[in-house]
């Protein structure tokens, strides 16, 4: 036991780490777990670099625990990019101030709650209990990923920690709200998934014709507000017209 933990300790890398994803992308890694403090470091570096983008840096992609910087190496050398990133980190205090808190409508009723009963059974919870727990949680928006406008949310209560399916299920509808692996996802695009569909939101997290196609930022918080199927349909008509139906919480 002692040996093992000693080895594990020795293997633990010192963060931040600068990793290469080829010659045109640099990964600045702050950790290897889903953790709000690590994510806050990622977002702080992202904000600092975007405020004053280094020449040759093309695109910044924040994820749970690292920032991927796409760059043109013929315009900026890797070492110079690292120097600027280090400087930005030294000059930035990772802000504890919270982002906006969004209230996102979610219908947990048929036909939207495709896997709700299955998830409730696996979690040994009543259906209403599961919904109540899910809707009561204030979730952190960690990142967008996988497909356009897909949000990855953390901060689910432990009671909702469910493993991914061993095999993917057939494609979920657009707007599905899913859970797995202790996380929650809002998925604007129809995709097969290994997660469990609890419900659906009429909100469009990505709307190309809207002035701001994406309105939620990583670092924001989010709560789901249960709505019935009739309300869902009404809200859906509004979002189809380009309206945003999510509300910013005053709290």
């Amino acid at each position, binding site marked *: 036991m002692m040996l093992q933990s000693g080895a594990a300790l020795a293997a633990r890398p010192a963060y931040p780490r600068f990793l290469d994803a080829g*010659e045109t992308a640099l990964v600045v890694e702050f950790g290897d777990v889903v953790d709000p403090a690590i994510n806050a470091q990622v977002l702080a570096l992202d904000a600092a670099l975007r405020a004053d983008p280094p020449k040759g840096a093309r695109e910044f992609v924040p994820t749970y625990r690292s920032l991927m910087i796409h760059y043109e190496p013929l315009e900026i050398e890797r070492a110079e990019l690292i120097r600027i990133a280090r400087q930005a980190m030294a000059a930035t205090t990772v802000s504890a101030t919270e982002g906006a808190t969004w209230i996102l409508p979610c219908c947990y009723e048929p036909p939207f709650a495709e896997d709700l009963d299955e998830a409730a059974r696996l979690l040994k919870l009543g259906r209403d209990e599961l919904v109540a727990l899910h809707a009561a949680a204030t979730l952190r928006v960690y990142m967008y990923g*996988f*497909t356009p406008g897909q949000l990855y949310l953390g901060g689910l209560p432990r009671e909702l920690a469910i493993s991914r399916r061993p095999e993917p299920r057939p494609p979920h509808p657009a707007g599905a709200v899913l859970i797995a692996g202790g996380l929650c996802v809002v998925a604007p695009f129809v995709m097969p998934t290994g997660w469990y569909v609890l419900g659906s939101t009429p909100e469009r997290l990505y709307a190309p014709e809207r002035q701001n196609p994406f309105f939620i930022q990583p670092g924001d918080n989010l709560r789901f507000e249960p709505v019935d199927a009739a309300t869902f349909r009404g809200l859906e008509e509004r979002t189809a017209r380009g309206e945003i139906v999510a509300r910013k919480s005053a709290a």
Partner: protein
Amino acid sequence: MMSAPSEAGLRIISAGPGTTLQDAGRHFYLRFGITAAGPMDPLAHATANLAVGNAPGATALEVTLGGIEVTAEGRPLTVAVAGGDFAVSLDGRPLPSANVLLTLEPDAVLKIRAGRSGAWCYLAIAGRLDVAEVLGSHATHTRTGFGGIEGRAIGADDRLRVEPSGAAAVPLGLIAAPWLDRPPGIIRVVLGPQDDYFAEDQIAAFRDGPWRVSTKADRMAFFIDGPTLTHARGYNIVSDGIAMGAIQVPGNGRPIVLMADRQSTGGYPKIATVIGPDLGRLAQTRAGTEFRFEIVSVEQAVAARRAEATALASGVAVEPLVRTDFTSEFLLGLNLIDGVVAAGPLR
């Protein structure tokens, strides 16, 4: 001169599955989960565009092994074909090279079919294609329905309106682009970002292969067949960003190279990343073709990138097949094959 053509355009007579419009990619939205898409072989795409006088990242058709047949409408169009070694013919007459520049007269039929090697080629049209932009780009990503024509692949009877460039008609010519001569065999990679998930012997096994592109290879990912790799410490990582060319190793130990249409983030360790200059070389490698990986440093990758940029900056030379300015209709009456021999050796 044609009499009062209303609109210039390219009409698709037939197109193999997966034919798409691609520009240099939909950049700057990866942070919102939006894949850049763009050409599978960026170097060939740029070459075709430069040959017709377009910007290197202009919108062009990406042609697959399924081939394509097109004709011009309204006005003659200056077009270029560049990429893999495809078989190109004009009105049924085979052209002597896969990399050609020509004037496509209305109703003349340009046909591109799979040839001896290569998996993608690009058909660029001098001027501007009149298609709607999505987030600043025409690049097609069919999985999410972004870009191109209604976010889908191009098919028979599609018409692309063209605002032709003012350039004069060109005689049929061969595009001299020696940088497109990239025999398969060695694909250079930079290790990481998660090479520390693999022991040294596994890195060696990864390097030496040998690998073959499997039949499961498309714009999103190339599944490759070879040794089964084992992870030193699990295969689930907390998702992070994915660059084009990233080689992820899922739980079954069989690597997947993520290509232009890849998802923006993922949760498998990425052992290495194909360097930019070799992305096209890998993309052009057909199923069953053997190759190995060569591990290079970032500095070596940048040197290769610089060499590529320098070559492109020197311009794309076009060698006229016949040094006269006849219309292509007239030109096609000539014995083209003899003309080629006279013009110089084929590559």
